């Protein structure tokens, strides 16, 4: 068959809308991400990038549309036929096991302050994956080694630099072996000289074939590391395509051109 070389769709976002009161944060957003793809979402603040990402692991609910990972709807299940199958929010237990299939790295790191670097990684492995603490410890050490922090396993977050904390955050997410990794402006809270070490880790994960969706303002990184770039504006997908197309200076998309121009002016 002709389509046999195409990797399967892993994440399928279909016509997702969401509003906070009178504000439409997401307006019928549709986007699919194939297995192994790295998709970067860019756009002005308030365009709904982070909200969209948070809908993917249901940290935020959405009003309509559907989000499926591996064909399975994330936050809702079909209701009973007598309610004409109206969707129902999954139970908290169900949601927890769905969320274990996605990993997320946050802008503010969000490490658990009372646990060591290794402890942060082990918590999900022992409590969610049911691994023994010895097994979890060796997985944690493996991933800490991968992000260059093998020697910091027993350090508390407060004893680590921002870049180190964020690398622990990445290790914590990937150690769970998620199907997809969500990266929410993970370098925005870092001092400029620490950005590189974090992006290097992301790059190596991409090389391993990890499926990723990331929101970032690092345009150069987005251009180099992404399979596709999505430009969001006013809660909708305004442009999507390979980095070279979307970031081209001669784009006919007015919003995108204005965004890129402003970006170049402030970042170079």
């Amino acid at each position: 068959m002709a389509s046999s070389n195409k990797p399967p769709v892993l994440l399928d976002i279909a016509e997702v809308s969401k509003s906070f009161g009178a504000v439409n944060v997401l307006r019928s957003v549709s986007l699919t991400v194939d297995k192994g793809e790295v998709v970067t979402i860019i756009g002005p603040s308030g365009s709904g990038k982070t909200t969209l990402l948070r809908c993917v692991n249901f940290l935020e609910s959405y009003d309509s549309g559907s989000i499926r990972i591996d064909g399975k709807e994330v936050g809702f299940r079909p209701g009973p036929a007598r309610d004409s199958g109206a969707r129902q929010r999954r139970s908290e237990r169900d949601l927890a096991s769905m969320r274990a299939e996605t990993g997320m790295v946050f802008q503010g790191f969000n490490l658990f302050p009372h646990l060591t670097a290794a402890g942060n990684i082990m918590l999900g492995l022992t409590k969610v994956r049911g691994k023994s603490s010895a097994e979890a410890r060796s997985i944690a050490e493996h991933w800490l080694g991968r992000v260059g922090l093998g020697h910091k396993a027993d350090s508390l977050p407060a004893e680590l630099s921002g870049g180190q904390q964020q690398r622990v955050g990445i290790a914590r997410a990937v150690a769970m072996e998620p199907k997809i990794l969500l990266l929410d402006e993970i370098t925005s809270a870092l001092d400029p000289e620490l950005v590189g070490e974090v992006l290097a880790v992301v790059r190596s994960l991409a090389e391993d074939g990890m499926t990723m969706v990331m929101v970032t303002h690092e345009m150069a990184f987005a251009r180099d590391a992404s399979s596709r770039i999505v430009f969001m504006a006013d809660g909708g997908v305004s442009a999507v395509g390979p980095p070279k197309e979307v970031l081209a200076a001669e784009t006919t998309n007015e919003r995108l051109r204005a965004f890129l121009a402003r970006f170049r002016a402030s970042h170079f």
Partner: protein
Amino acid sequence: MGYTLNFNLIWRHFDKLWGGLLLSLELAVISIAIGIVIGLVLAVWYVSAGRVVRAIIAAYVEFIRNVPLILLVYLVFYGLPTVVDLAYSAQTSFVATLALYSGAYLVEVFRSGLEAVPRGQLDAGKAIGLTPWQRLIHVRLPTMMRITLPALSNTFISLFKDTSVASVISVPELTYGAQWINFNTFRIVEVYLVVTAMYLVTGYALLFALRLVERWYRTAR
């Protein structure tokens, strides 16, 4: 005419004070332990409950905080048995009262601690797939403890001193022991000097121990 300090009579009856101090500590420990359970359960319930439950818990807290402890002690010891058919000792009565009293204060301490846990940490707990119960046990409560420990220590010290109110219903704790010695020896200055020193030293010892716990908690692996 001069008043000559004479501590001999105090030392002769020191067993009353020593026994009283031990009972004061016992009353405080038991009441606070029950109060912690009340406070934790209600605080966790409060932050996740609807308006009705919140209103009920808030009413309990407001009631306790606006009524003097001594009045509550009288109400529970003298008032309650005349209304309901219950028999209990003065000591039990006081422990129950101080437990309810400390519970109300601790609800407030724990509630503000729970609400101060950064949302990002709860998001992180959700993101790795922890259930609500696991998030409470492994993320929310440990972080809350770090936030509330200093306030908690102050509440404990204050509750320890509140055990002196038990003397009004003749529970033989430290203040009651002091009164007994005063009535029997008339060495009022000496006995209250000694007892003040005993409260002071014990209070400081408690504070020191709690600070050690705080430090241990901050650096625990």
